[in-house]
């Protein structure tokens, strides 16, 4: 290997940098329909949102309500009050003593996060106090999440 004079060590990878474009609003926005409103050929075979939420309410009553209250302002039980949980940060309810795992998780409760939690609480948050409430059926979780979405509006 001969002596080679390296004359240039530049800042490289410039094009790897992700320069966010300015958040331009649409110049034109033509709203034709709302999702699910039309009889589109491939519209979802899943039950309408209302049906799903009422199915979820029933499952919630049987599997979750023993620990979780849902009315705004209602006191927490063995688990925290869940009113407005969709989009909220984990560990937000004042009158509930969360596990360290939950309190420090930083999770924002999206449907997918809720789905992961309900599928196996202990796996999602090792150390969570949520010992019960595991829903193994994906359709049940979907229904419960639809219900939680409903009461979060």
């Amino acid at each position: 290997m001969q002596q080679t004079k390296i004359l240039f060590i530049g800042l490289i990878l410039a094009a790897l940098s992700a320069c966010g474009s300015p958040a331009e609003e649409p110049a034109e926005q033509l709203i034709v329909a709302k999702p699910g409103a039309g009889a589109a050929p491939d519209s979802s075979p899943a039950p309408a949102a209302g049906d799903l939420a009422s199915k979820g309410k029933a499952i919630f009553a049987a599997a979750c309500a023993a620990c979780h209250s849902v009315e705004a302002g209602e006191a927490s039980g063995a688990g925290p009050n869940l009113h407005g949980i969709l989009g909220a940060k984990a560990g937000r309810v004042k009158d509930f003593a969360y596990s360290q795992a939950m309190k420090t998780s930083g999770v924002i409760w999206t449907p997918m996060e809720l789905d992961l939690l309900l599928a196996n609480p202990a796996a999602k948050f090792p150390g969570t106090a949520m010992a019960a409430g595991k829903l193994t059926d994906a359709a049940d979780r979907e229904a419960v999440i639809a219900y939680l979405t409903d009461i979060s509006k």
Partner: protein
Amino acid sequence: MNEMSEVIAETPETPKAGKKRGKWTRRTFIGAGLLTGGALVVGVAIRSGKPPERLRAMLAGGDGEILVNSFVKIGKDNIVTAVVPHVEMGQGAHTALAQMLADELDADWNNVRILEAPGDGHFASHNIAREFLAPELKVPSVLEPTVDGGFLTLAKMMALQITGGSFSIRGTGQRGMRAAGAAARAMLVAAAAEKWQLPASEISVDRGIVAHAKSGKRAAFGELAEAAAKQALPAQPKLKTPKDFKLMGKPIARLDIPAKVDGTAIFGIDVQIPGQKLSYAAVKAPPVVGAKVAKMDASAAKAMPGVLQILNMGDFVAVVAEGYWQAQQALNQITVEYSKSDADKIDTAAIFAGYGKALDEAGADGGDTLAETGDAAAFFAKAAKKVTAQYHVPFLAHAAMEPMNCTAWVRGGLCDVWAGSQSPLGARNAAAKTLGISADKVNYHNTYLGGGFGRRSETDNIEMAVRIAKATGYPVKLIWSREEDTQQDWYRPSASSRFEAGLDASGKLMSWNNIHTHLFDPQEAPLVSYYNIPNSLIRKVDAPMHLRFGPWRSVDHSQQSWFIESFVDEIAEAAGKDPLALRRELLAKSPRHLAVLNRVAKMAGWGSALPAKHGRGIAIAQSFGSIVAEVAEVDLTAKKPRVTKVYCCADPGFAMNPDGYTAQMESGIIYGLTAALYGEIMVKNGAVQQSNFHDYPMLRMNEAPDIFVEIINGDAQRLGGGGEPGLPPLAPALTNAIRAAGGMRIRHLPVAKHFA
């Protein structure tokens, strides 16, 4: 995994407040703690002695957070979880990284699980920045802050946590995963020693069991995890040497394969949001980069089935519909007028004319000098024999098989994003910046990637998706058509390169003068320091290029290796030497390169007779720390050249998973062969002309050569990468073989256009 921030303690390695800033070393930086539930966690960060405050601020890290490159969790159930800060795009990094960790830990492989780190800043692999900036640079202390500052700037630019640069194994694996495993092992042994009141030196670990042979005492990892968390942290855990490797160097089956075979693996395009009905968006951006939407007529599209919204976003048009097909069909019915600019006049010929002009202006000694040895110009003037050549390569698209996509849901000041990105943190930051919200309001979910090749380190798809989702207010999955993918890529740049070589009267190569357009990355791509050439001058010149460009598998090595190794063969031909013999001569002082070259020549039976109109071509390249030589065998008896065999020998230092490494060589060869034979993006009226696989073809199964790969483990202390190094030698081996088979010397890729 955010709970990690609370439990990983800073080690005594951290300089106390007020103490002088530590020198940047590659010292590993270890933290450990106990998770609620009794699991031991050990994390490793690699960084300057002082936590990078500016980096922390940029990543919106909170108090007590540290950047962890890798970590291991050992549960009471004996399950060892390897948390890896890299994404899986088919390259097998997840498994190899877990292998490295599990070997140092002496874990039971059956109990090892893999978790991909979230794009949340804790796992930022900012050492990648350092690795790119100056891989082997030894910096005097006085310069350290400058380099560190440069590296922080670069890190910021890159938004961190990138999977690329063939870096995962040689960087994160070698410096992070192994140290985490070894540290956890030492702590488990210390816990056992304390519990049994026996000396740690007499305690061994094998397949997840800690044991003391004389007393017969044994304990599984899970039993010791909690006590291990209270043990002192080894600041410099002792790593194994190859003779003690049990998992490293073994062809362990990839753990992501079963889900990919049975279809359960989730890629970005598969994402569904539980409880939510997704709408689908199709987009069209202006054909000429930088143009705007001047006028949109959507009257026909509005009436089409399933259409929900039609958006003129200024820099692109989008249709949101109940299904993807409906969105794309409606989009096709929208007529758009675009703003005009001078770029509308640009075509491929004009681009190359511009390169030629820039090279002419630079002349024999102009441009930016990259490396200089001796006096190339002076020798060339008096050379007994002169060889000159000029080469051109086209723009290339990435053509990842999974179309570009992104799912986004923006509501109430929050945003969820789902995509497969090579830069999860960059994706998250891009979403936040686009929406004008802080990064902690963005919940980013990374998936498997259906091909990356550098394309998925860009975030344009993410930005588009969040803008659409913000406008609709409901969750939307954006999917690009293949046409949009081909025409709106961040291309491998086209480039031109000129060479002058001078030989002495005995035919010895004495001078090498090269000038080429563009230098992107890595900086050493055009250098030939492993070749023994007394006088050399290597320069680059910038030339206008209006298309967006970005990293493409092996980046600048993809064109530079073809330029260099084509010219070496032209020198051999001019000197009347065998191409292998000339390379042996040039590599006399580079023993590792020579060993690789000799092995591939032996594999290929170099020099043995071939049928008429058949030929062999050889090439060698060093990229991303690995040395790879390839021999291609070509059959020119039919109208089109057919590559029948490719022999490949690689020295990556040490192949952590030889099966995975071999697969990466094969994949690089196939991807490189596709590009060399067919790849060409052309420009007319400022716009990309190619649009889909009919005019931007991929190599088909019936065209694939038999590939033979052998690995030399040349230096276990210096690992090279796997994702990219298989590609660079392929194109020159192919065109050198065509020449050897009696065909023409190809100086302008792709190959196919010379046989049309």
